């Protein structure tokens, strides 16, 4: 009898349009946020299970948050606007390397004018946001062809972006500040004078970013632009005949998506990795993000979180479960098994529930509304 809407009347359209119109959902969300912002840091501080060591924070929670953020970005483009992108890794890279350059000072000599562009090193927060902005600009550029090119052809165009930027960040040494090893160290994470260093602090930093951006994303998708995106996805011709401008809708989708993915890339590099090479953002990463979005649920913000959690935890589970059962399994076999399971799950979900885990979750909630009655 727990999950009922009886007695909850909406007396205004604003209330009807709320993100969580059902009171029980709001309470659940507040509890979750309380646990995330307060509970987990407390557990970590006192080293209580499951945060007995740094492992949970450093290897699971922090990457989960950042990848979930990237998945939200990818979901906006692929799930809400229906534009396939196989190049999200490149946009993470653009965010990361741009943020790095802004954080270490940009100096571009312009001999032909006889002057130069010189920007002093910026603080971390503006650098990260500017990294996102750079990614957004490139996203818009690569989105321009999307008016003429659709579907699979667009996927190939995004692959072009992926491979091109792989090469750029490898060969154009300006981006790595001419580091001999080709790998780069993140600047110190100083936010408003506060030095973010320990895993708990990094975790809270990521949590703040993710919460803010998830809220922004949710607001966009339930408003006018979100409907335009979905209209283009579902029936772009009819949308155009209704006065929705496909170019505007698609470019804003590319811009917002790439911005979020770029910020995620900068966070991945600065907060999670600390020091990185271009390989961190290769096509494997693009496919990984795409899988998160498909498995979690296309066109669902919640789905982005579920998908990220699943993809991150899968290799760990495939590693731990056989060990727990006493079956020896090599690292290599685990990674091959991850391939097989991920691929099979994608096929299975596409057949059975194309809207992914988010839909399964919604169905479970529907059943819960009726519980304990069968119908």
């Amino acid at each position, binding site marked *: 009898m727990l999950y009922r809407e009886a007695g909850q009347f909406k007396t205004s359209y604003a209330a009807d349009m709320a993100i969580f119109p059902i009171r029980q959902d709001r309470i659940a969300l507040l509890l979750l946020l309380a646990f995330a912002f307060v509970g987990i840091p407390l557990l970590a501080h006192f080293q209580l299970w499951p945060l007995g060591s740094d492992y949970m924070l450093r290897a699971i929670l922090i990457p989960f948050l950042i990848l979930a953020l990237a998945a939200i970005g990818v979901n906006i483009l692929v799930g809400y606007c229906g534009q396939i992108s196989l190049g999200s890794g490149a946009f993470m890279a653009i965010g990361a390397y741009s943020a790095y350059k802004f954080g270490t000072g940009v100096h571009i000599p312009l001999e032909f004018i006889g002057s130069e562009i010189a920007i002093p090193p910026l603080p971390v927060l503006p650098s990260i946001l500017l990294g996102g902005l750079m990614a957004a600009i490139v996203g818009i550029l690569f989105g321009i062809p999307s008016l003429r090119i659709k579907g699979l*052809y667009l996927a*190939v165009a995004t692959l072009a972006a992926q491979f091109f930027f792989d*090469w750029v960040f490898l060969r154009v040494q300006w981006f790595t500040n001419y580091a001999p090893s080709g790998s780069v160290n993140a600047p110190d994470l100083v936010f408003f004078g506060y030095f973010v260093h320990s895993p708990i602090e990094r975790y809270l930093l990521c949590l703040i970013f993710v919460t803010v951006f998830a809220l922004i994303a949710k607001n966009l998708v339930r408003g006018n632009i979100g409907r335009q995106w979905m209209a283009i996805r579902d029936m772009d011709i009819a949308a155009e005949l209704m006065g929705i401008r496909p170019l505007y809708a698609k470019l804003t989708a590319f811009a917002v998506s790439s911005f979020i993915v770029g910020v995620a890339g900068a966070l991945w590099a600065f907060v999670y990795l600390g020091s990185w090479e271009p390989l961190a953002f290769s096509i494997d990463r693009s496919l990984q993000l795409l899988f998160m979005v498909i498995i979690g649920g296309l066109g669902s913000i919640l789905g982005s979180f579920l998908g990220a959690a699943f993809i991150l935890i899968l290799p760990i589970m495939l590693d731990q479960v056989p060990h727990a059962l006493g079956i020896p399994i090599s690292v290599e076999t685990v990674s091959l098994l991850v391939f*097989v399971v991920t*691929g099979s799950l994608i096929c299975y979900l596409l057949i059975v529930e194309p809207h992914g885990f988010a839909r399964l979750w919604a169905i479970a909630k529907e059943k819960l509304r009726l519980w304990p009655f069968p119908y």
Partner: protein
Amino acid sequence: MLVFGQFLEVLIGGLLAGVLYSLVALGFVLIFKASGVFNFAQGAMVLLAGLALVRSLDFLAARGVPTWAAILLALLFAAIVMAITAALIQKLVLGPLVNQSDLSLFMATIGITFVLEGAGQMLFGSDVYPLSLFPTDAWFILDSVFDGGILVNKLDVWGGLIAGALVAGLAIFFQRTKTGRALRAVADDHAAAESVGIPITWIWFVVWLVAGLVALVAATVWGTKLGVQFSIVFLALKALPVLIIGGFTSVPGAIVGGLIVGAGEKIAEVYLGQHIGGGIEYWFAYVLALAVLLVRPQGLFGERIIERI
């Protein structure tokens, strides 16, 4: 003359390399022509075919089976493996998804890619396995015209001949045989084809089987060139620009596209690469494809899509 000779060498090398891309692209075109599905897994199929081939070949050779017999048996084994794969894909994945959107089918093939990559390597191993079915040494031609002659790789020439034979064979298959005609009917309109009695499930199995055999042929050539290994899958990704340029539904387009990509890449690498830092081959094909897409979205030989509402 020397400079032209050099250019010719690069060009011929590029063209022949391009033919190898076409071999993979042909598999894509087949499946796309007959079922409208873009098979991202074609590269993984090349890997699987190659692994099955090379491992069984090594197995038989180690047991003292004479070379020619070992090769035949290994080819047969690999073909059977591809047939089983085709049947499984048809039954488990494509059958249930038959009415879904193109996007869903495409993503399913990405899923299949991962399954084939993982399962293939789990079954047959994940090292680099050298294959030597063709001569790989150099050959100097036209040495009367150009000083020292033009360097041409024999393997590439074999690849070209095989690709030519394959194209001719496929063309005959599509135009002259009953199954080939049925395939074209199915590609045009599934429901209509079904309603005139064409068994769709069987047809699709045939398509994937043939694509699997094309993958096997590609594996013999690619495997000899590079050794059978995981990175072959990325080569298949190179076939995508080939398809874009040639058009997704055109067999001659796959060949022409492959030639353009192969030659373009090599020439760009040699002549442009020294100015920008090398490694251009990595992305040149894709950017070229992008340029073609902007000018002619259906590719050089593809069919124009007229939208109706």
